[in-house]
């Protein structure tokens, strides 16, 4: 374990930014739900946060190499849970991405993300080539592909898509030679139309079509985006003020405390609020990348990079979806959206990054 001197070296800028974002999240969740039938939402989120911060201590103070050494087992557990979900879902003929443990329910896919990131970092510990060879590609492909496949057959394309940043990070930071890029692009070009025709359900196709032309059907699939845009746009530069957002409190805006929490921010705190929160995200991410640069070893750097890529992906997709820049998916906004599993997942991610930071100067 580490001494108290090391505890003091904890990067409070980084940790503090994450907590500040979470506090802003609670304020927005309260504002989004105070007028609705279920007003205990914010209390539950606070409980999740406190529990998450407490549990994070494990991921901060136990040397990350311990987790890396266990990464194979953890990855196996993640895959086993997903497999269980699939088999159980088949047995009950239900789409389920939740596991119930007494009063607590959680989404194994959230934890599978962290475990997969750990497994990848472990792999790159021993692979320091400038470019990945075919064997390396296959290793990475299997590590990411198996959990993704299990999530796709649930079927939950939205969550499966959140593994994309891992693939991108592994390919970019592992290094890919130009000819592999060509192959990859070709595969995507062939796969997309095939997926459109055979894999996507009509409602998913509908979502993408509506995304391309949201005003086409303002009461159907485009409804959420229209309402979110109206909320954000009507907020103007200074916003309508705390608890004053009519779009949100009058329930025009669906999923306003989960996926569309950013629209509440836009409506009530205006462009200024949006600008400040985006700035906080940028500040957080830049600090995280600094940790990656200074990491003691390659595995630490890759762990941070994988986790950062998750956060970046969630922030970009979620924020862009608020004003219709990307199709609506069920991707939560890190630290701001209501939800137990995602809150825990992102807190643990930050904890692991702090872990790498703490040990940059420690002799092992």
């Amino acid at each position, binding site marked *: 374990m580490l001494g108290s001197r090391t505890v003091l070296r904890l990067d409070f800028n980084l940790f503090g930014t994450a907590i500040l974002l979470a506090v802003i999240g609670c304020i927005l969740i309260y504002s989004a739900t105070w*007028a*609705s*039938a279920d*007003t205990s939402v914010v209390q539950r989120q606070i409980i999740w946060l406190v529990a998450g911060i407490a549990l994070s201590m494990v991921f901060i103070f136990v040397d990350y*190499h311990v987790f890396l050494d266990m990464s194979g087992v953890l990855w196996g557990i993640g895959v086993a849970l997903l497999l269980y979900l699939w088999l159980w879902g088949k047995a009950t003929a239900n789409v389920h991405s939740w596991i119930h443990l007494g009063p607590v329910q959680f989404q194994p896919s959230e934890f599978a993300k962290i475990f997969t990131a750990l497994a990848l970092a472990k792999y790159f*510990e*021993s692979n*320091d*080539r*400038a470019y990945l060879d075919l064997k390396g590609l296959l290793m990475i492909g299997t590590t990411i592909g198996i959990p993704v496949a299990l999530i796709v057959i649930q079927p939950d394309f939205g969550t499966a898509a959140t593994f994309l940043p891992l693939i991108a990070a592994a390919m*970019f*930071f592992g*290094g890919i030679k130009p000819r592999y890029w060509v192959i990859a692009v070709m595969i995507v070009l062939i796969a997309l139309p095939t997926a459109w025709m055979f894999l996507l359900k009509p409602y998913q196709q509908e979502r993408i079509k509506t995304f391309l032309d949201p005003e086409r059907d303002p*009461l*159907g*699939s485009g*409804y959420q985006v229209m*309402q979110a*845009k*109206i*909320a*954000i*746009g*009507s*907020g*103007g*530069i200074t916003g309508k003020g705390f608890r004053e957002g*009519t*779009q949100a*409190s*009058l*329930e*025009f805006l669906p999923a306003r405390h989960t996926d569309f929490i950013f629209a509440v921010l*836009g409506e009530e705190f*205006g*462009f200024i609020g*949006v*600008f400040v929160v*985006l700035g906080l*995200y*940028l500040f957080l*991410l*830049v600090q995280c*990348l600094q940790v*990656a*640069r200074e990491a*003691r*070893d*390659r595995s630490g*750097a890759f762990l941070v*990079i994988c986790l*950062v890529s998750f956060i*970046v992906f969630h922030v*970009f997709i979620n*924020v*862009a979806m608020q*004003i219709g*820049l990307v199709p609506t998916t069920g991707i939560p906004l890190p630290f701001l959206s209501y939800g137990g599993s995602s809150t825990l997942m992102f807190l643990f991610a930050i904890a692991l990054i702090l872990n790498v930071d703490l040990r940059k100067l420690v002799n*092992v």
Partner: protein
Amino acid sequence: MKVYRDDQRLLNFRINVFMWLIILGIAVLAGSFWYVQGVHAERFRGLSESNRLREISIPAQRGLILDRNGKIFVDNRPSYTLMLVRSDLARLEQSDPGHREQMIAFLSAALDLPASDIEKRITRHDEVPRNRAVPLVEELNIQQVSEVEAHRLSFPALSVTTVPRRHYRYSTMAAHVLGYIGESTPEDLDRDPDLQMGDILGKKGIELVYDDYLRGIDGNRLMIVDSHGQFLSEIEDTRLEAVSGENLYLTIDFDLQRRAEQYFFENEMVGTAVALDPRNGEILALVSSPAFDPNVYSKRLAPETWRLILSNSFKVELNRAIQGLYSPGSVFKPVMAMAALEKGVITADTSFNCRGQQTFFGRSFRCWKRGGHGDVKLEEALKISCDIYFYNLGALLGVDTIASYAKSLTFGERARIDLAGEKPGLVPTTAWARDVQKRSWYPSETISVSIGQGPLLVNPLQVANMMAAIANGGVVYRPHLVREIESKDKDGRLVHREIQQEVLHKIEIDQKALEVVRSGLWRAVNEIHGTAWSARVPGLDIAGKTGTAQVITQETWTKSQDLPYRFRDHAWFASFAPKDNPELVVVVFVEHGGHGGSEAAPLATEIYRAWFSERLARGGNLATRESLSNREERVQ
């Protein structure tokens, strides 16, 4: 640990590229938001103003409750409710100050309610989202509806909707079985997270116990409305259709139930009657008099109505069949007879001499017949209800043996009927005296218990369970009121699920011994000098036992009917018919009714006549082919 060297610079380069991509992405996002919030703010502000979405609940039809033959007891009728959308009202008040006051004044005049009351009704729903329509006044009459509709354009925040209202077709009939409904309370919400404030759910009786089946699932739809509150269109992919509740077929027989209730009503009696099928525990009639009108209870009650209900000295809400606890009196004697035969302390031929009184454990006990009955055997003792005979059985058995036997007949326990609030009563034991009463049991108390007096307390349903077990050869079925649940499957087809019979206990008794008890009960009704002679129906082999439960200890021999009402004895009659292969058990209990034979038995007779009317008309022979073949089997 492998420390990396070679590609540190390459990795840092890639990290920097990544960082600049992030900065670029955030900048693009910020720019896009500026475009929406800075450049086009006015346009979206306008859209936000005209954006009116309203959630409208589609109430689910509560399931019907029917009798065993499909006659409807409870259904739903449309009733008119005045609804208000408070967000509309607030907006109208903003653009037209004084609108709210005008609206309240209009409602006050149209509905004849004080303005302060309407004000209170508006603020009552503060926890419900403001764009949701909330009920303001329920059960408008047609005149009020047309009055409100005529002013619809002046007060667009108001509307009238039709909601199903629970309707108990025969008002007080079977009220204690059916129960009633009401609005959810905070405790209900804690128990069931699916419930919302103001939801309707069962509060008593079948309505309560089978609430999950009856309730159904409310649907809802989202409507786009214009600034005048007119519906423009519906967002159809958000529509949730309501799912109707399931229908319940009771075991109750409508005609039997009505006949039994009329008897209590016409004779102005307080009491209860239970008729059940001894072959499976199905309850055919369950009356508790006086009854209440569930239609009144299911409305929002005015405080004065509540006060009236609570001040009623006859406790109308009490279901006397399962919640009324009384001394069983002589109807307990068959239990003594069965226990004594089974434990072997007597045989059918054992006789005791009744001289009108006898001393047990140093105390003198009297028979109801002061002159005494002379030498009496068991069958005779049941027929003439000789107290001395049963005192002797009590002395031989001891209270704990009596108690354990009584318990296997559901005395002292809940028989798990599908109604809430069953009271188990009390079967005293030496352990009860020691642990609860903190005293020792006096053997002389056992003598009182032997004739159903003393601390022994039972409810009428338990007496019916006992009679059913005597009738069917010793099986105690769980008494139940619902026979079948009818629901619709996914394709809209009706699905029927039958409620299975359930055995609570099998009592230990030799069939021959049981036949002696049955025979004694038959003689009580069908032989001259039998205590229930008045209950006989020619052509119908009724077997039964009368009982008279003393309300106060009578030191002097005063005739019960000469006493003031509240000191008069309770009257019991417990019976089954026909004697061989019984099909019906009837227990009647009349509070302060005096003697069981004269007050309680006539109703039982009437019920039997009604139930067996066809067969009685056919020539009076009740030994059906089925029962004859059974008898042959038994001979073999």
